[in-house]
């Protein structure tokens, strides 16, 4: 049997929780047993006047209560860790106590012999089939040994029921008959109870597993996986023949098998299901679970011959209803006619509700991803087309401005200079867009390698130092060399710090300073870029990493920029598994913090 998650089946033992629970129950019942032995002896010996070995029975009752105290203590100490051991030890003690009880109450004549049935039944419930069988054989052995030892005179025999002949315990026919019936009864109990109980427990476990996986489904965004889990899970939970999910196509007129379990390829390829022609699906899609109790005798089927040939004798069909529209149907196929119970219908309906939510989530996520990829490819194509004319125009203008096409008068030079500036800004915007689009398109497969953050930050500070000096901004870097590397691409990492440190220099007025700090914190490297610049107004802070967002004070001050730099920073930092944040006060400055996981 395959499990829901495809892992091999678990070993055939009850869950530890069952054992712990049952151990506690055994302990509770044993208090009663001990007291019953004491009370029963008092009544039997002193009131009813039975010739019982009262002292021995009192001692036995006391021993039962004593070891129950020990078992209770042990199971509190170790029961949760080793419930099976606790169970085995208790049962062994109980057998000895029960054997003693049977012995003191007449051996083969004792009605207490029937108590052993109770233990064998318990073992069948609690323990794996083979172990329960071993237990039954041991119990039979124990009783046989007791009875034979008494008959042979090795153990004394207590004759407690005066009405029975005194030598009955030595009568070969009687003893053999009692032992044979006793043994057969125990073995029958085990062979009947164990498989039934295990099947029941398996079933329960499958339901629990299915329930859990169905609960978890809506958070899974992988559509084929969601569908597969549903059909597998439902088939196993109901022990049905098969299950399938058919989703409506774009027209809403045809159902297409999107996931199936337990059906032959030929059956799946029998043809499309037209909603118009499938009464069952039509009804189900209206939201009511539909049952075909017997496929041999149901006129609603579109492919009756194929259904029978496939060995499908009953069908349960439930719609998968999304938030706004029906998505399709979940069908479960039964081995026999009248396979499904009312409970099964409720159960499948619940699974279908959760499943529909999961399917819808996965579908919208898939659409989102496709839209995002298409958008990014589009942006990339457009920016390439945009960049070519812009760079060609810039190239020409620069040549003209260098007087390579003849001399210019001052006005012409001024105008062409302005033109060139505007083109530069346009090119910056396109380059940023291209970065952003490239990141989105290639982000997932881009190969990352360890890159030294220290070397990168130092290099960028060095590159920007002349610009800072020109602006009279004090640009400093503070770090202790530790050889810190992160998994990134060299270009991307350079882009991150060039943007952040470049911005800090750009938005800091003369006389201000920019401090870059680099330190290790746990498994992360933390780079902070703090400036004493114009700062970011509070309302803008939450949006500052959004694409095309530019803080209001930047626009007012006429500072140029594309509004994409920080979006790119965020995109890249997140691609490398890190995060970026900002603290800022208008007029006082901003501090950007980048946290990246260390390589290795």
């Amino acid at each position, binding site marked *: 049997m395959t499990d829901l998650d495809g892992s091999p089946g678990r070993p055939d033992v009850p869950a530890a929780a069952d054992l712990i629970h049952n151990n506690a129950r055994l302990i509770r019942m044993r208090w009663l047993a001990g007291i019953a032995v004491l009370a029963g002896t008092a009544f039997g010996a002193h009131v009813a006047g039975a010739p019982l070995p009262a002292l021995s029975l009192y001692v036995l009752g006391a021993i039962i209560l004593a070891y129950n105290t020990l078992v209770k203590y042990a199971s509190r100490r170790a029961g949760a860790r080793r419930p099976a051991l606790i169970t085995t030890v208790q049962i062994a003690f109980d057998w000895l106590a029960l054997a003693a009880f049977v012995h003191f109450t007449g051996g083969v004549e004792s009605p207490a012999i029937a108590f052993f049935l109770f233990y064998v039944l318990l073992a069948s419930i609690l323990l794996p089939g083979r172990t329960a069988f071993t237990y039954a054989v041991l119990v039979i052995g124990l009783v046989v040994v007791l009875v034979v030892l008494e008959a042979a005179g090795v153990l004394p025999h207590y004759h407690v029921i005066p009405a029975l002949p005194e030598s009955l315990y030595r009568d070969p026919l009687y003893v053999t008959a009692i032992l044979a019936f006793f043994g057969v009864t125990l073995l029958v109990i085990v062979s009947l109870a164990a498989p039934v109980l295990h099947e029941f427990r398996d079933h329960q476990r499958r339901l629990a597993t299915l329930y859990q996986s169905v609960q978890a489904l809506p958070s899974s965004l992988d559509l084929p996986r969601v569908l597969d889990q549903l059909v597998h899970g439902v088939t196993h939970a109901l022990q049905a023949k098969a299950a399938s999910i058919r989703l409506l196509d774009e027209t809403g007129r045809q159902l297409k098998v999107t996931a199936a379990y337990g059906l032959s390829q030929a059956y799946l390829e029998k043809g499309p299901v037209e909603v118009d022609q499938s009464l069952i699906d039509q009804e189900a899609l209206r939201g009511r679970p539909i049952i075909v109790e017997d496929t041999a005798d149901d006129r609603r089927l579109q492919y009756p011959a194929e259904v029978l040939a496939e060995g499908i004798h009953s069908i349960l069909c439930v719609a998968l209803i999304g938030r706004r529209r029906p998505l399709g149907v979940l069908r479960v196929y039964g081995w026999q006619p009248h396979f499904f119970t009312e409970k099964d219908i409720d159960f499948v309906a619940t699974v279908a509700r959760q499943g529909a939510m999961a399917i819808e989530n996965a579908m919208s996520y898939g659409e989102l991803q496709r839209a995002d990829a298409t958008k990014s490819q589009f942006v990339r194509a457009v920016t390439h087309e945009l960049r070519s004319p812009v760079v*060609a125009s810039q*190239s*020409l203008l620069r*040549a003209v401005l260098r007087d390579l096409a003849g001399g210019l008068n001052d006005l012409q030079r001024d105008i062409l200079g302005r033109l060139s500036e505007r083109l530069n800004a346009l090119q910056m915007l396109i380059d940023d867009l291209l970065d952003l689009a490239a990141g989105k398109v290639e982000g997932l497969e881009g190969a990352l390698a360890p890159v030294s953050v220290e070397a990168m930050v130092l290099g960028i500070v060095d590159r920007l130092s002349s610009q800072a000096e020109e602006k009279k901004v004090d640009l400093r870097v503070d770090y202790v060399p530790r050889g810190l590397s992160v998994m990134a691409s060299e270009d991307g990492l350079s882009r991150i710090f060039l943007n952040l440190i470049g911005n800090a220099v750009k938005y800091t007025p003369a006389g201000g300073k920019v401090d870059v700090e680099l330190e290790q914190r746990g498994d992360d490297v933390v780079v902070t870029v703090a400036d004493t610049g114009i700062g970011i107004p509070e309302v803008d802070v939450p949006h500052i990493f959004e694409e095309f967002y530019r803080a209001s004070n930047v626009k007012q001050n006429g500072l140029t920029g594309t509004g994409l730099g920080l979006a790119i920073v965020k995109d890249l930092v997140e691609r490398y598994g890190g995060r970026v944040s900002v603290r800022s006060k208008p007029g006082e400055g901003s501090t950007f913090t980048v946290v990246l996981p260390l390589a290795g």
Partner: protein
Amino acid sequence: MAKILIIDDDPDIVLAMRLCLQGAGHDAFDAKNGQEGLRMVPEIKPDLIILDVMMDTTTEGFQVSLKLRSPDPGSPLAAYRRIPILMLTALHSTTDLRFGPDEDYLPVDAFVDKPIDPDKLVRQVDAMLAKSRHPEGGE
């Protein structure tokens, strides 16, 4: 004064470069695709080739440079395999095509970015010409 062949499909880029190179006293010739460029090499016998990386296809520039560096035996190009090649890249830094001048992979000598900066272009061209005329640093 050197003969320089520009292979680029963008006539405005060609014009801008022509202005820059002529301003620096060089002779500029141009071809608008790889095939035409390769045909012109034996005719013009250029001292340097400026090659656009991306013409009709993203790899046309690379293919042309490979043909120039390792021509088929007996091809008229065989005599020109040592001509310095300057590759023009329109590609922005973080896009996928990014190679260093690697003899195995990309047989070019240097790169220059678009848009063309006249001073940078001329400096680069002159440096490459000086190197090819005086290999190993002088005669």
